[in-house]
């Protein structure tokens, strides 16, 4: 009976999806509306070259703010669910060769993440991708060196501090936008340098930095609270 029901649901959903997708006309994404505006206005209105970054952090920056709120709510929920008395049971880590090799490699991972965050308006990348690479450093510390090393280097209070700093940086740029341009998260034209150089694109660079810190610290807190073992009640 259950197999029969599953087959019926699958067949019905697949047929409906396929019929509806086939009826979408080829000119569904009308190129003379929003996307044409974005394409034409990206250099003159924001100073950034990467159109995806310009949409995410300038034209639709309020959307990104809501997305940061979703990450904050997820981190809060996970920490609340796992908030028993926990004991950070640490493994001894892997062998000496692996530890030394990652001692060489980890600064380059950090450098790559900072590069991706700061060049978000010029090249592919931005706050999300660089932030997730920052969170990968926590995973490297927990797996290679054991989680007590991560606890001693970056305790959860410091991660929370970094996350709050990112969120406040985002909001602060928004309020400065109110003061300078009259609208929340507006891009002040005094900050825009020459397009194509590193100090350009106005408020996109600090928003990138804030989103990067927020996403990196949030995902690091999620991973760190997942690998903790529960303290047994005596």
């Amino acid at each position, binding site marked *: 009976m259950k197999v029969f029901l599953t087959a019926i649901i699958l067949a019905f959903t697949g047929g409906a999806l396929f019929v509806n997708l086939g009826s979408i006309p080829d000119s569904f994404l009308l190129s003379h509306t929003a996307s044409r505006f974005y394409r034409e206005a990206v250099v003159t209105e924001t100073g950034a070259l990467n159109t995806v970054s310009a949409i995410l952090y300038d034209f639709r920056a309020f959307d990104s703010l809501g997305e940061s709120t979703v990450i904050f709510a997820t981190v809060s929920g996970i920490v609340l669910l796992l908030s028993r008395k926990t004991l950070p049971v640490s493994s001894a880590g*892997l*062998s000496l*060769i*692996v530890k030394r*090799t990652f001692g*060489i*490699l980890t600064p*380059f991972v950090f450098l790559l993440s900072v590069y991706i965050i700061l060049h978000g308006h010029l090249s592919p990348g931005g706050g999300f991708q660089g932030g997730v690479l920052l969170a990968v450093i926590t995973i490297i510390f927990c797996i290679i060196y054991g989680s007590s090393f991560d606890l001693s280097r970056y305790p959860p209070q410091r991660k929370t501090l970094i996350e709050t700093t990112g969120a406040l940086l985002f909001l602060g740029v928004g309020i400065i936008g109110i003061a300078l341009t009259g609208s929340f998260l507006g891009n002040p034209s005094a900050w825009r340098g020459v397009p194509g150089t590193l100090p350009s694109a106005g408020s996109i660079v600090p928003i990138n930095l804030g989103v990067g810190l927020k996403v990196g610290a949030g995902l690091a807190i999620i991973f760190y609270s997942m690998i903790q073992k529960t303290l047994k009640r005596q």
Partner: protein
Amino acid sequence: MIEMHLFISYALILLGCFFALSTTIGILRFPDLYTRIHAGAVALTMSALLITVGTAVYVWELFLSLKILLIGVFLLISNPMATHAIARVAYRHRIAIPVSRDLSSRQKFEEDNRHDSS
């Protein structure tokens, strides 16, 4: 004459593809965990290195080529390290211990494990 570096890059990439193919055949056909790791370590590092060098010759700009060569250097460091970690964990967890005729290697393995667990 301007196409010379293109020929060199194609030759390097094709050689890298041959090494990758031999890696795949080795991983599929070898019987044991350790021999499979051997195929994945040596030939795969060689193939990745050849393909990155071939790509660096293909783009033929100074800074872009240097960036791609940096990726090759990191592959050269990290791939043997990963192989070492996998082999060490398999040895610790007694997966597919190689059976040997003489007892000395077997005894040495037991001593290693006793030393580790203590």
